[in-house]
Structures are given as C-alpha cells and as structure tokens.
C-alpha cells in the first residue's frame, strides 16, 4: 500500500491504474476530524503545564478555562485520498492536512472521473484555459510562469532575457 508524498505522483499513478482497470477501481476520499490520542493529549497538557509554570502570573485563572478548549482545538483533521482496485488489490494513498490543497485535489478527482467515464483525456487542454480565466491570466502569463521556474532553476544567463520579458508584461 504505497503512500505518496506528492499529490501529483498519486494522480499519475491513479490514472494509470484507472486506465488499466477502469471498471473495478474506485476512489474514496476521507475527510476526518479526530480527537488526538490520549498520549498526545497528556503530552500537550504537560507542555501547557510547563508553560504556565514559567508564567506564574496567568497560571491559576487561565488553567481551568484553557483546559476545556484545548482538546477541541487540537483536533487533527486529515484529507485522505485512496485509489483501490479490488481485482488486483492495488491501493494508492495520499494524505494531507492542508486546506489549501483540497481544491486542487478535488480537481484531480475530476480528472480521474473523466478517465472513469472513458472520456477522452483532453482535460488538460480544457482545464488550462478555465484556470487562466479564473486567475485573469491570458496565454502569455503561462509563458511567464515557465520563465519563472526556469529562472529559479537554470543559470542566470539563460533566464535573464525571460525575466525581462516578464517585467515588461507586469508594467503593461
């Protein structure tokens, strides 16, 4: 049961699995909010105790008040994606706890749903203009992004010209 560290990797592997076994493969996503384990709670309490000990002024009053909300605040929320094919037993997982990723992940679920539905994979061509429309970025901006990436990685000489171009666009 491989767990992937990046969602892109999970997406590519899942789409390969889906292409191979489109009928039996299912994708389940789990959003779970769990209270932390007892051991973790006790640890955090100890931490809090040491903190309050170091700040004796606030200790007696705030201790009772803060004791109740901390467990709810410390709840651990995760979003797990799982691609599972019962026929072959393949299971691909990806887990995150970042809210910023949810939109993108559901988007990739949509891409995979297209594979499931046996629709042609024009998704990238179709989705690209939609994304750009969303961020008010026409085609040249995409070029700019590429240049940015090149700038960060490549030698300064090669990326210099591109950087200049990008600046001009910004001024316009």
């Amino acid at each position, binding site marked *: 049961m491989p767990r992937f560290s990046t969602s892109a990797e999970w997406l590519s592997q899942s789409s390969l699995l889906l292409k191979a076994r489109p009928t039996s493969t299912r994708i389940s996503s789990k959003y779970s*909010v769990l209270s932390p384990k007892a051991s973790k709670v006790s640890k955090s309490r100890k931490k809090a105790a040491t903190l309050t000990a170091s700040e004796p002024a606030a200790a007696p009053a705030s201790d009772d008040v803060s004791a109740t909300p901390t467990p709810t605040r410390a709840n651990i929320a995760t979003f797990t994606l799982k691609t599972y094919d019962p026929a072959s037993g393949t299971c691909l997982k990806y887990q995150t706890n970042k809210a910023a990723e949810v939109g993108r992940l559901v988007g990739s679920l949509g891409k995979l749903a297209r594979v499931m*539905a046996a629709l042609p994979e024009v998704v990238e061509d179709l989705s690209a203009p939609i994304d750009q429309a969303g961020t008010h970025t026409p085609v040249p901006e995409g070029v700019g992004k590429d240049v940015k990436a090149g700038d960060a990685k490549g030698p300064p000489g090669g990326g210099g010209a591109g950087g200049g171009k990008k600046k001009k666009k910004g001024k316009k």
Partner: protein
Amino acid sequence: MAEGHITNAEAPQFFTRLAALLDTNREKGHGSVYLTQKRMALSPDAAPSPTKVADDPLWDTHPANPLPVIVRASDTKEDKAKDGSRRDKPKIKFSTIVQPDALDAFYARYAETCKAGMSALKKRDRSKRKKDKRKKAKTGDEKKG
C-alpha cells in the same frame, strides 16, 4: 440503500446534503466523511454479451460510449456505547450518478462544497513566511553594516 440515487437533474440536492453532512461533522467537532467515486457499469449498454467479453477481455478499457460515474457520500456509524444513547446512529449515506457530459460542472461545484465544508484542515500558515522575511532582512542589514 433504502433511497434511490439522486439523479442527474437533482444534483443540487446532492450538494445541499453534502454540505449539511460536512456541517454536522463540524458541529460535532470530530468524525469522518467518506466520499467515493466509481464507474457506473450497471447500465445495460455497458455490459456486453459474454461472447464479446471472451473475445476481448479488456473491453472495459475502451467502451463504445462514455459511462456515468457514481459518487457516494457517507459518514460513519456511531456506536451507542460511545455516545451514551440507546441505539447506534445509522450512517447517513447518499449518492448521485453523474453523466459524462455533466462531469466538469459537477466537479467544479464539488470542489467548492468540499473547500467550504472541510474547514478543520490547516489553513495556510503565513506567519512563518513573514518571520523568514524578517530574518532575511535582519541578516541583510547585518551584512550591510
């Protein structure tokens, strides 16, 4: 499943129910919501005759027509022992069948609903970045000085 699928025309109902499910989860402060998607291969035109299957065992990798996708949502069963109530609370579960031509629109709305509902996840942490910038500025000043 006691109730039928939410059909394509009633897709908005799916989203209102999903939003409600995520909301109850938020109110509870704990618990899980499961969302699954799978090819809907039960329609009669999707399953070819056995002879054709024997001829082409990989027929499902290239069906003649695009197939609908079924999206299910559920929460977890709640144990009466934990809750202190008399009976186990049954799962809330519902599903919708998304026709291939409606997929893009469905997933756009699906993403919105999920983003809004999954509020317990970590928000983007901006404080760290600011700190880094301050640090960088400080080190820069030191270098200058």
